[in-house]
C-alpha cells in the first residue's frame, strides 16, 4: 500500500499521541509530553515560514510571548475571559506580523535574519521592562482556564488539549503544503524571479505565511501560559527564538513531522539531562553546530533518504 507523506505524518502523529499516555509512567512525563506538543505547534508554524518559504526568522519567540502574555494580561487588566484573551493574542500577533512583515520581508539573507532578530528582542524588551503591566522579569500569574463551568486542570487534560491543538495545526499545515499557496511558497523559495513571472504575488505570499506562522506561535504561547499558570519574559527571549529555529532545522526544514521531532528532541533532552542542567547551554550550542555542519537537511529528510524512493501523491 502506497502511503503519501501526508498520510504517513498524520498516522504517525496520531499513533504516538494515542499511545503515549499508556506508555508514560507518571504525570511528570505527561507534562513533558504536553510541553513537546506545545513547542511543536510553534515549530510547525515556523517550519512553514522557514522550511517551505525559505524565509528565516530569528525573532519568532516574540510572537510566542505575545500569545502567552495575552492570556496573562487580558483577564487581569481588561477583565476578559482567558479564552477570549487567547483569541486577542492571536489577533495581536497576526496584526503585528502583518504590519512589520511587509517591509521586513523585502529583505534577504542576513539582513532578514537580523531584522527579525531585532523585532523579537524589541518584543522581549517591552515584556521585560513594563513591570507595572507585565510583572517584569519576575513573571506573572496566569488565571486558570474555565470552559463553561469546567475547571481545566490536570496533566492528562492538558496533554489531550495541547495534543488536539497540535493535530489540528499539523492538519492545517499539511493542507497548506498541498495547495496552490504551498506550491507558490516552495517555488519562491527556489527562485523568486521565476515565481513572479509565473504570476505569483511573492510579497503577498511571504506575508501570508509570516502571519500564519505568527498565529501558530501565539497559539502555542497561550497554551503554555494556561498550562503552566505562570510565565516570564523568557518565553519571548532570543534563546527561545534560537531554540525554535533549531527545532525546525534539526528536524528537517520543510518537513512538518521534522518540526515535531525537533521539538521533541529539544524539549526532552534538557529534561532527561536534569542531572547535567548546567550543561544545557553548551549542549544546545554544540547540537546547533553539529547539525548545521553535518546533517543540514535534518533528521526526517535524512532518514527518508535512506528509505526506498516512493512517489509523493
Amino acid at each position, binding site marked *: 500500500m502506497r502511503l503519501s507523506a501526508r498520510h504517513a505524518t498524520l498516522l504517525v502523529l496520531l499513533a504516538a499521541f494515542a499511545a503515549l499516555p499508556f506508555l508514560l509512567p507518571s504525570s511528570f512525563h505527561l507534562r513533558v509530553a504536553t510541553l513537546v506538543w506545545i513547542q511543536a505547534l510553534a515549530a510547525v508554524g515556523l517550519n512553514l515560514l522557514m522550511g517551505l518559504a525559505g524565509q528565516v526568522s530569528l525573532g519568532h519567540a516574540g510572537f510566542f510571548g505575545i500569545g502567552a502574555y495575552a492570556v496573562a494580561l487580558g483577564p487581569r487588566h481588561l477583565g476578559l475571559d482567558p479564552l477570549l484573551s487567547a483569541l486577542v493574542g492571536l489577533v495581536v500577533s497576526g496584526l503585528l506580523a502583518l504590519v512589520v512583515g511587509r517591509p521586513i520581508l523585502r529583505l534577504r539573507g542576513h539582513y532578514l535574519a537580523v531584522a527579525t532578530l531585532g523585532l523579537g528582542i524589541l518584543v522581549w524588551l517591552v515584556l521585560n521592562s513594563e513591570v507595572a503591566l507585565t510583572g517584569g522579569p519576575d513573571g506573572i500569574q496566569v488565571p486558570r482556564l474555565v470552559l463553561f463551568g469546567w475547571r481545566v486542570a490536570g496533566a492528562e487534560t492538558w496533554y489531550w488539549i495541547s495534543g488536539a491543538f497540535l493535530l489540528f495545526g499539523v492538519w492545517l499545515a499539511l493542507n*497548506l503544503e498541498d495547495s*496552490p499557496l504551498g506550491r*507558490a511558497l516552495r517555488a519562491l523559495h*527556489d527562485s523568486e*524571479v521565476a*515565481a513572479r*513571472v*509565473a*504570476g505569483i504575488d511573492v510579497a503577498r505570499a511571504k506575508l501570508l505565511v509570516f502571519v500564519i506562522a505568527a498565529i501558530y506561535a501565539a497559539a502555542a504561547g497561550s497554551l503554555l501560559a494556561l498550562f503552566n499558570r505562570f510565565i516570564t519574559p523568557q518565553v519571548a527571549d532570543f534563546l527561545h527564538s534560537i531554540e525554535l529555529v533549531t527545532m525546525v532545522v534539526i528536524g528537517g526544514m520543510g518537513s512538518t513531522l521534522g518540526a515535531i521531532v525537533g521539538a521533541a528532541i529539544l524539549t526532552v533532552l534538557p529534561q532527561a539531562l536534569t542531572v547535567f542542567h548546567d550543561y544545557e547551554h553548551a549542549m544546545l550550542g554544540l547540537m546547533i553546530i553539529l547539525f548545521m555542519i553535518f546533517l543540514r537537511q535534518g533528521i526526517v529528510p535524512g532518514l527518508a533518504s535512506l528509505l526506498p524512493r516512493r512517489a509523493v501523491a
Partner: protein
Amino acid sequence: MSAPLIEARGVGISFGGVRALDDVSFAARSGEVFSIIGPNGAGKTTLFNIVSGLYRPDCGKVLLAGEDVTALPPHLLAARGLSRTFQNLQIFFRMTALENVMVGRHLHEERSLLPTLFRLPSVLRQNRATRERARELLAFVGLERRAEDPAGALPYGALKRLEIARALAAEPSVLLLDEPAAGCNAVETEEIDRLIVTIAERGTAVVLVEHDMKLVMRISTRILVLNHGRMLAEGSPAEVRANAEVIAAYLGRHAAEAAHAAG
C-alpha cells in the same frame, strides 16, 4: 493585419553611465515568431527584462494588447497574459518536473485561504485538474516520463523544455523565450524549433532571443537586429540576411575581435 499583442515603443535604459538600450521599438502579433538577434552585449536580455517587468525603462513604453503596462511588476504582467523563460534557467530545482509545471498554473487556480487550510473538496478537485493539465504540458514538450523526477536530476536540454512547459501553463497570449536553444545540441534544437512553431500556430505571439542563426532564419516571421543597444535593422529573414549593415556589424565585430585577440 491584426493589432499587435505586444509592443515596445522607444524603450531606453541606462546602467550607470552606459546607455544599454536606446530608442528600441518592436511589435509582435498573434501567431508570429518575432526574433531579436545581435552580438553579445547588444541589449537583448535587457530588452526582455524590461518587457517582462523586471527592469523599469527610463523612457519609452511597453504595451500589452494595447494597454500601457510599462511600470507593472512581473506577476501583474503574467496576469495579463505574458510569460517568459530565462537564459540562465530559473527552475524550481527542489520540486519535481510535474510540480514545476503545476506552479505555472497558479494564475488559473482558485487561491482563497480558507478552502486551502481546510482542504475542501474544491481544492482537491483543483489539485487534480492542475496535475492533469501539467501532465498534458509535459507531454507536449516530451517530458511526460520524467514527471515525478526532481527537476535537479534532469539534463540541461530537458530543463529548457521544462521551462517552456511551465511558461505555457499560464496560457499566455505572449511568450518571451530567452535563448531557448542555448547549449542544446542539433537534435534538441530541432525539438525546440518544432515546439516554437507549434506554439505560434496556436495563436500565441512568440518573441525570441537567440544566437542560433539557422534556427532564427528558419522559423522567424520577422527579425529585429540590435547592436550596442540600438536598432540596426528590422524585417523578414530574407531582408535581414541581405542587409549590408547587419553583415558589416557581424563581420566587422568579428574582425575587430580577431585583431584584439592577436594583440
